[in-house]
Every structure is written in structure tokens, then in C-alpha cells.
């Protein structure tokens, strides 16, 4: 295709722009340049061009890194022929992407921020479709003696011991949740900034890498932890507190606000995730025999 276009361009376009003062040493360079422009444009157009049915879903690193999407999206595509392109960001960034209209569907986990998003008219048709839970991981030796069920008590102990704690610090859903528990524990972690409280300002994975390297405590969702490989000396220390539920919501970017949103395809995806089939697909995803996400639409 490119070759043919080059030939045509050389004949037509070049003929059109033939300049009277072309010289022996100028011609070759010029035609090469023109062909290069043509090729570059064709290449750019070729890669941009996609005839397939697809939607863009702004989602979080936890759903992507844990492998959930890799499991459920092929099932959805097999059924509907719709390709789901996932852009995995923190919840804060995912909502910002959607606000600009750069996604069709949002699939995130921060109830408070999601409610605000819908209230401000950026999203419609929000549904709560699944949950997993948060855990606190830390060094197996547990210098702060924080192990147990109660997340608030555990955070207090970590703060009292001034044990190193790595936080996302990136306005993600997990970061927002972590900050809520600190507030409930009546502790301002910012007082420990620069000493024991360390904000990495990055995703869950990089934060866990940092925690692993420093033997620090960290607040994480279970899904990311289970599929995380570079654990070093870290292990789960706090889990099972009812307050640690991590609810995921899915919603359509408001087509009234962004006319180009693929509302029919997007709705189809949301319907499927909430359907018995989609819910079963979520439940069937396991890492090392352990279920990562629990469907709960309509419950």
C-alpha cells in the first residue's frame, strides 16, 4: 500500500509541484523528502485507523494488574464482538480522564469520588458490581505488633511505633480509603512525613516495590497483593475487618456532556458486567486458587 501510494505521489503530487529551477543536485533530495512525508502520513493514518468495534474503559491499576480484565474481557468480546480497551490509572486520574470525555466507561473503586462524579453530571447509570477487600501488609517480624483484625488499632500501633509506612499519595481509590482509616484512627499521618510516613506518589505496584525494599508497612487491595511477585519479607498482617470492604462501581460517561461517547456499546458492557453471566465471570477469576473479586450487583 505504501509503495503504491509512493508511486502515485511521485507521479501526481510531484508533477504538480515541479519547480522551474530544479537543479541536478536538488532533485534527488527533494523527491526523497516528499516520499518520506507521504510515507510518514500514511503510516500515521494506518496505525490510527481501526475499523473494529471498541470502547475505552478508564479503570484502575488494581483491576488490570491483578489480571481480572485479562480474564473477563475475552469472554465479553467472544459474546458481543466488542473490544474493550482498558486505560489503567488510579481512580482519581481515571475519573479525570472520563471528565474530559476521553473514555466511554469508568470502572473504579472510590464510592465518595464516584458519587460526586455522578452528581456533577459527568457519569450516568452507575452500578456497584463487585468488591474485594483491603489489607495491611508489612514485614513478617511485625515490629509494630500490628497484626490482627482491627484496621484502626493496627494503624495506631504503626504510628505509635513510628514504623516505616509507604502510602500511595496519588489520590487513587486505595489512597483515599487509607486516608479515611487514618482519620477514623484520629491520626494525621502528615506529622510523620519525612520520617516514618512515606508517600511514593505512584501506583500500587511501585508502592509495594518500595515497601518491599524498605521493609515497610503498606495499605493495599488484596487483588494487587495476590498477583504481586516482588514481596520480599512482606506478608499480610491485617485482614478480615468488615470496614475493609473495597467496592467497585461502573458507570457510563454522560453522553449528554460528551456527544462522542459510545453509549450503546458502553451500556452493553455495563449490562454484561452486571448480568448473571458477567458476575459469574468475575467470580470465576482466581489466582493460585484464591478468588480475587466478589460480584455483588443488586445485593
Amino acid at each position: 500500500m505504501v509503495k503504491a501510494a509512493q508511486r502515485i505521489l511521485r507521479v501526481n503530487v510531484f508533477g504538480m509541484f515541479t519547480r522551474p529551477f530544479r537543479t541536478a543536485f536538488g532533485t534527488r533530495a527533494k523527491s526523497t523528502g516528499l516520499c518520506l512525508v507521504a510515507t510518514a502520513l500514511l503510516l500515521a493514518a494506518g496505525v490510527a485507523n481501526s475499523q473494529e468495534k471498541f470502547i475505552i474503559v478508564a479503570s484502575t491499576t488494581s483491576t488490570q494488574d491483578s489480571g481480572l480484565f485479562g480474564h473477563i474481557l475475552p469472554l465479553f468480546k467472544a459474546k458481543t464482538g466488542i473490544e474493550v480497551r482498558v486505560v489503567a490509572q488510579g481512580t482519581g486520574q481515571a475519573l479525570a480522564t472520563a471528565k474530559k470525555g476521553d473514555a466511554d466507561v469508568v470502572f473504579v473503586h472510590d464510592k465518595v469520588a464516584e458519587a460526586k462524579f455522578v452528581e456533577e453530571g459527568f457519569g450516568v447509570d452507575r452500578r456497584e458490581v463487585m468488591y474485594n477487600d483491603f489489607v495491611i501488609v508489612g514485614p513478617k517480624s511485625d515490629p509494630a505488633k500490628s497484626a490482627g483484625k482491627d484496621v484502626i488499632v493496627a494503624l495506631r500501633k504503626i504510628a505509635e511505633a513510628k514504623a516505616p509506612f509507604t502510602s500511595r499519595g496519588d489520590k487513587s481509590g486505595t489512597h483515599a480509603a487509607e486516608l479515611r482509616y487514618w482519620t477514623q484512627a484520629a491520626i494525621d499521618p502528615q506529622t510523620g512525613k519525612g520520617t516514618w510516613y512515606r508517600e511514593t506518589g505512584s501506583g500500587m505496584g511501585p508502592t509495594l516495590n518500595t515497601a518491599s525494599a524498605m521493609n515497610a508497612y503498606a495499605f493495599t487491595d488484596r487483588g494487587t497483593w495476590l498477583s504481586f511477585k516482588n514481596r520480599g519479607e512482606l506478608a499480610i498482617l491485617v485482614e478480615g475487618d468488615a470496614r475493609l470492604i473495597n467496592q467497585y462501581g461502573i458507570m457510563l460517561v454522560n453522553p449528554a456532556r460528551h456527544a462522542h461517547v459510545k453509549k450503546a456499546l458502553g451500556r452493553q458492557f455495563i449490562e454484561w458486567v452486571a448480568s448473571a453471566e458477567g458476575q459469574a465471570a468475575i467470580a470465576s477469576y482466581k489466582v493460585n486458587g484464591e478468588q480475587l473479586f466478589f460480584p455483588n450487583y443488586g445485593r
Partner: protein
Amino acid sequence: MQDILQSLGLAFNLMWRLDPNLVAIATLSLKVSGGAVLLAAVLALPFGAWLALARFPGRDAVIAVLNGMMGLPPVVVGLLVYLLLSRAGPLGPLGLLFTPAAMSIAQAILIFPIIAALARQVIEDAWDEYREQLLSLNATRWQCAEALLWDMRFSLSTSVLAGFGRAVAEVGAVMIVGGNIDGVTRVMTTAIALETSKGDLPLALALGLVLIFLVVCINFAAQAVKSYARRRHG
């Protein structure tokens, strides 16, 4: 140390059995950065040549700025292109965000100054040497630039390769404008970043080694073409 050895083995293994995922990602990397280089070179080489020959007030300042732009932070370029291509931005209706074309554009902006600045230096040095000769042929400024560009093509190819190296190795810009979408905009560098964030450090490093290997291969090929052409056409 053991991690590094493991990565070496893994890198070799991935390439040996031509892992289909790896092939797809590596191909996209080369396409995106190749497109970026074409786009940038077509604009930057003439610009560099023009700047080499032109004389105007403030030329030194333009050169200084151009040289400085060689250090453009990829993440800033990514943000800029993101804001331009976003649906809420001026070029939003094109729907280019999160496509390989957007990645090529971002990389092209990133490497334009590198190619232009290096070309400017090469052409200016050649201009000093051939000036009398070209002017005696009654060539116009632009014809001189063309002749020098063609004459210096072997030296200029190094500046283009430098641009390619920078484009194919950067992650900050393509992550933002491409979105690292599996099978659509995931390239070598964003895949490396992803595997790092999953804590699979050996795989991440293995992918890095594959990328380095590919870039070296391309430079070998370029070198071979260059010496062949030089022997034939002098």
C-alpha cells in the same frame, strides 16, 4: 545478581521462541518510533539546514533554545500532546488519543529538536567547507541547503539514529498519550513499566534487554547499509 542472570535467560528464551506477545509489542514499538522518526526527520532536517545557512538577528538564541530542547522531558511532552488530543482539547474531534498515531506524534515532538540541532551542526560545518564552491555555481540558499543535506546524508543518518534511540527508549510520553492499552498501545517501554509495577522484576528487566538488543540490531543494520552505500556511491 541472580535476578539479573534469570532475566538474561528469560530474555533469550522470549526471543528464541518468538513469544507472540513479545513480537506484537516489539513490532508496535518499532512502528510507533519509526513513524515518529520519519515525521520528525522530514521536518527537522530541512529546518536544521535552514538554520545552518540563515543569518538573522536572534539566530544564536534560536540555536541555544533548540539545543536546550534536546533535553525536553518526555512526560511534559506527553502531557502537552494529551491536552491537545483530549476530547476536551483543540484536536479532540480527531479522536487520536490512546492510539499509536498519538504516540508517534508525541515522540516526533520529543525528537524533533535532537535531529534538528544535530543536523544544524553538521550542515553548518559542511557549509563552512563548501561555501565558495556552491556560491560559485550560482546556487540559491535553498539549493545549497538541499545539496548539503544530500551530501552529508551519511553524517545526518547518525542524528536520525540518535532521534530513534531516544524515541524508542522513552516511556513518559507514550504512557500518557497511549494509555498502555493491551494489544493496542502497549509498547516495549510501557510493558516494562507495567511488569515493574506488578513486581515481576526479572520479566521487566528481560523485556529491557530485548529492547536494547533490538535497538543495537537496528544500528548494526543502519551501519551496514551506510558502508554499502558509501562503497557504491562514495
